[in-house]
């Protein structure tokens, strides 16, 4: 009963949503709304779980002195944001949005920009044209990069055109093939979930 009832509930909810694509009507609309309410309330509880989980983790860190002061700092920043949002609102021009624009945005942009260095150093170590495939990868990435900077155009004015062609034609074909693979894989996976053959989400 620990597995069968959840699988049965999932099957019922899934069948109702699935058949809704083919059968329309007031009864179905109400039934769909009934399940959609369940999903929305699940979202509410999901947010509560995330708050509980993060608070619990920070409490543990403080209790067992695992980088205690950093956890204090993190909690104080969370509380500051909650206080600013609750006290002065979240519209543009408020302290809350000022924190977002002048603290969150620069930190986020810098963290992502930092990856440029690590990608470059990883590429320097791993990009070696040992086979046809790796040579193709290397050449394609160099052309795409050169096509996007003024230096590429200065070397040869056709390089941006080549870069665009690579992005539009072979790259698009590769992406489409991967998307097809992903779609077919997800259909298979969800059919398995549907019939209870896949139970990883039930901690099995």
């Amino acid at each position: 009963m620990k597995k069968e009832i959840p699988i049965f509930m999932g099957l019922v909810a899934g069948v109702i949503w699935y058949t809704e694509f083919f059968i329309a009507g007031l009864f179905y609309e109400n039934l769909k709304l009934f399940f959609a309410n369940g999903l929305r309330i699940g979202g509410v509880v999901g947010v509560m779980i995330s708050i509980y989980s993060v608070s619990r983790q920070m409490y543990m860190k403080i209790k067992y002195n695992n980088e205690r002061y950093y956890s204090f700092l993190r909690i104080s920043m969370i509380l500051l944001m909650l206080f600013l949002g609750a006290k002065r609102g979240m519209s543009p021009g408020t302290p809350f949005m000022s924190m977002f624009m002048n603290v969150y945005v620069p930190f986020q942009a810098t963290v992502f920009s930092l990856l440029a260095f690590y990608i470059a150093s990883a590429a320097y170590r791993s990009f070696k044209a040992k086979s046809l495939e790796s040579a193709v990868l290397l050449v394609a990435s160099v052309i795409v990069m050169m096509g996007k900077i003024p230096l590429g155009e200065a070397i040869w004015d056709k390089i941006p055109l080549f870069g665009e062609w690579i992005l539009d034609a072979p790259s698009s074909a590769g992406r489409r093939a991967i998307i097809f693979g992903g779609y077919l894989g997800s259909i298979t996976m969800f059919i398995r979930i549907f019939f209870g053959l896949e139970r990883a989400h039930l901690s099995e």
Partner: protein
Amino acid sequence: MDALLDSIFLNNFFFRWMPVLATLMIMSFLYRDNPLYKIGENIFIGVSLGYGWLMSWNYVIRPFFIMPINDMIIEFKASDIFIILWFLLALTMFFRFSRKRGWVANYYYGFFFGYAAGYVIPITVQNVLRQSTNLMQPLNQGSLYESSKWFVIIFGTFSALMYFFFSKPHKGILGKTARAGIVIMMIFFGAAFGSTVMGRVALFIDRTLVLVDHPFESVISSLIIIAFLIVYFKFIKKEKQFDDQTFV
């Protein structure tokens, strides 16, 4: 209180110094992991969590939980029982934190994933058909350049799919097509890598422009951070010195 908050968070000093400090604190990681980077990291996590929770409050908790409960208090309808039952069912997710009773959470997860399956399957089938329809375009696209794109897209997609889905041994014509598929995939990976690198570099240039726009703040902050790093790594944090006897 409002005036105090405005004077702290809505003034030029804050606008000028915070982006510069945030940029340089995170950049200090390029030298080595250090307390300034960790302070910046934790400020970033704290601010993003606070922002996310308030957004969740506004767009999830208030409309889907607080407002229905308010309506229930004003006028209770029979259908409201279902909302309470859904809430109780969703609360079972908290059992995931328990080692002994973790299975109780399966009741909601079972519903959720079944529901998602019913939702995703028809949409995915629609997407497969849409992608296939878009693929079927006339080869004559007006110019050789455009037509060559279509030829490569059709042949490339077909050959990459050959590589993926044909479980027959890759020999003969099938092997050659699959090999072409691998080359197409490699071009895609290369182009994706190039685009990612350029995106990251663009972000880095943007951060350096912020520093250039605030020269005074950048110089002062850089000097302070460099001085801190020297003092920290020279005098405070002692690297462990391993000698042969340590491993005996």
